[in-house]
């Protein structure tokens, strides 16, 4: 099944499981069309590998429209590849040239252990959410929605923070493997809205504590996370979380 005329060389991280050591292997990607997404290019390579009696390259993916946050490849030294504001499934082969060599690795972070090839375990993010990324409201006890009036600017800023898809690119991009952008996006969203203000102190303290326990590194304000975030989550969220944290520890 070849569809185009681009030929590429892939250097891909292969690792059998969590315990074994991984290494780079080289694969040919032939007959690639510029209209394919990066993941569809992997589909073509895998179909060929299976037909040749070899094992395919394993990678996480699901929605293939840039919203589930599942695809997690580190391409030529950048999370989700060379273009900004997109996930790997939205990266098209027209962003590469015929003859290119492309290096593909998994997210690298102690808090995201590799479980096979390009697949990592990101359950640390779920545990941070369990520590405080919510409003404590049981089903059935809510008031009429329009009883809470929210200034449009606040609602819009909260929405922009809530756009985070939890992919972990911010961690992968950070030299310290910090999860501050991810955590601050949730803290900001809820701190900006009246519904979230009741629990704001406990929330920020508990989420930051869990983040530290998971083994994520510190933030040194480099900004690689913001630059690589597929949803352009702003660094302002980190500043807002730092203020939230400070005021929570002072009182």
């Amino acid at each position: 099944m070849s569809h185009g005329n681009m030929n590429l060389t892939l250097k891909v991280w292969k690792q059998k499981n969590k315990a074994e050591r991984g290494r780079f292997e080289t694969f040919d990607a032939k007959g690639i069309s510029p209209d394919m997404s990066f993941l569809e290019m992997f589909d073509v390579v895998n179909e060929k590998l299976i037909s040749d009696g070899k094992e395919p390259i394993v990678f996480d993916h699901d929605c293939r429209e840039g919203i589930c946050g599942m695809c997690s490849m580190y391409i030529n030294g950048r999370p989700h590849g060379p273009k900004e504001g997109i996930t790997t499934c939205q990266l098209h082969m027209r962003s590469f040239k015929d003859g290119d060599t492309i290096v593909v690795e998994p997210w690298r972070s102690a808090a995201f252990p590799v479980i096979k090839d390009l697949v990592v375990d990101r359950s640390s993010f779920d545990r941070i959410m369990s520590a405080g990324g919510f409003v404590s409201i049981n089903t059935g006890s809510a008031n009429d929605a329009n009883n809470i009036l929210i200034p449009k600017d606040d609602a819009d800023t909260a929405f922009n923070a809530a756009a985070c898809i939890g992919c972990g690119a911010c961690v992968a991009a950070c030299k310290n493997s910090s999860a501050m952008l991810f955590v601050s996006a949730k803290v900001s969203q809820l701190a900006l809205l009246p519904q979230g203000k009741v629990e704001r102190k406990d929330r920020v303290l508990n989420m930051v504590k869990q983040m530290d326990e998971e083994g994520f590194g510190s933030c040194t304000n480099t900004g690689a996370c913001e630059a690589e975030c597929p949803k352009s989550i702003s660094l302002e969220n980190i500043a807002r979380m730092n203020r939230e944290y400070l005021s929570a520890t002072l009182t």
Partner: protein
Amino acid sequence: MASSPKLNARVPEGQLAEKWTKYRSTVHLVNPSNKRSLEVIVVGSGLAGASAAASLAEMGYKVKVLYYQDSPRRAHSIAAQGGVNASKNYQNDGDSVYRLFYDTIKGGDYRSREANVHRLAEVSGNIIDQCVAQGVPFAREYGGTLSNRSFGGTQVQRTFYAAGQTGQQLLLGAYSALQRQVGMGAVQLLARHEMMDIVNIDGKCRGIICRDMVTGKLERHFGHAVLLCTGGYGNVFYLSTNAMGCNATAVWKAHRKGAFFGNPCYTQIHPTCIPVSGDHQSKLTLMSESLRNDGRIWVPKKQGETRKATDIPEEERDYYLERRYPAFGNLVPRDVASRAAKERCDAGYGVGSSKMAVYLDFAANTERYGKIEASKKNLHSPSKEEIVRLGKEVIKEKYGNLFDMYKQITGEDPYELPMRIYPAVHYTMGGLWVDYNLMTTVPGLYALGEANFSDHGANRLGASALMQGLADGYFVIPYTVGDYLSEEIRTKSISTDHEAFAKAEAEIQDRINKLMTVKGSKTVDHFHKRLGKIMWDKCGMARNKEGLTSAISEIQKLREDFWKEVRVPGEANEINPELEKAHRVADFLELGELMCKDALNRDESCGGHFREEFQTEEGEALRDDKNFAYVAAWEYKSDGNFELHKEELAYENIKIAARSYK
């Protein structure tokens, strides 16, 4: 027509508008201390699954949730774009519970159950309240109130939204409620686990077999009740707007063990998707229905037109939806819009390189918004360029992420050129047959959200999937499952050493061994693509007797070939995506046949089911209410052998009529 004795819908007595209220006040309850010893398994973590799991855990039940992704937040509900309906009447435009109920029944082409739909409309408002309380950042007006927009098949504005990411925000709300319960120890998560089968003991569902997708190990889990919240089966077509992993395995295995399958042929083809660009394509991307608020759909009046869209003058454009359906125009329901697009393309008026696309054009509304903005800003006699610039800012705020997505995929800028769109498989109205309690024909086994057949009849209206998933999970199942569990308080946890568990596990192990040992020459995708082509060509937007008959024998042959020639590389005791796919495709190969059989049985056209033999002179769907006003619930007998049972649909509160949007 009388309903089959095997189907008891358990609709409460009384007036339609009072049924649910009365039911809630009289339903059996479980006291808090007993809840702690009752276990519920939830399969799937989308809107229905996450909301059900969180709500049941809040009530005190012991809950387990499994999902095939790495986090509950990634379920495909996340990709829903446009919005969620609720009859709040915040816009003062005449909305009411009855009107939402009526629109949904009519939109479904009079093929859904009145009592379920009315309940859905009743709880719709609570959903918005609950989500706002959780911190879901819905779009708002400057006064701080919630904003609404219009969707197809209605004449009121009842759709609540968060830009083009409504599904994401609603799911993250439900996910946060779920994670809160996980933190409290009330819910156990099983990430990267796929359900393989249900386990029935003495006629009741008592648990599941699932596969740990990292180690490959099969696991047994006991539950007093099992909720399948596993979404739809659109991926039977290979290409659809579903996520790559969406599958029918859970519902299909349940079907094989006694759960009847309702209306399998009702498939929704969404009119506004990005057209197929080549045979490498792995999935199709939706452009939200909300775009039809502000976009006008047209094709050139000349066949085989070669000029650029922007060079075709106004009088040479055919706004065919506005022409055919003046009352609803571009906001006709999805089935009607999809068929109209197919009709124009088949007649030779299609656009783009494949000629299988129509235009969705924002120019007129960009200008209209620009004028409003200019007036707001007190700009006197602004230039055309100024108006267009201001208008584009408004469009960007409303649909920015969708426009970016379109540009990324097609390489064309939709702010400058109209979008090219074509229909694609999007949603399945069919699913496991459930009664009023959302229980399948297997006691203790429930189906919620897209996985059941219940509320949308033969066609779902836009922004109603999110509504139904959350209604089922937050507001219906917490009551109805209690009614069943109140009878189970004396049932102790059954050991998973029970022979029924051992037998179910052995069957699955056997099937996995078979898949691993075929060692044929063709990949799983090869078979999936072939199945998809048969389904799309013969059981897609238009169906006929001849095509369906041949599709059935083609699928049977393909299934035989699959078990002889499929190649699954690697090993079963590790992460093995090819094995996962093979398992799912094997089930699709059985389900596809049932879909065709159901479509062949239904000698009428209704909603998404369009049989070419049954249409009006104007090409509209022609229902046969005398013979087909029923739910087709299929019972599995043996491979390829299904028995039809009918649930009569009685309309006591709505006058059943020809559906017109003209």
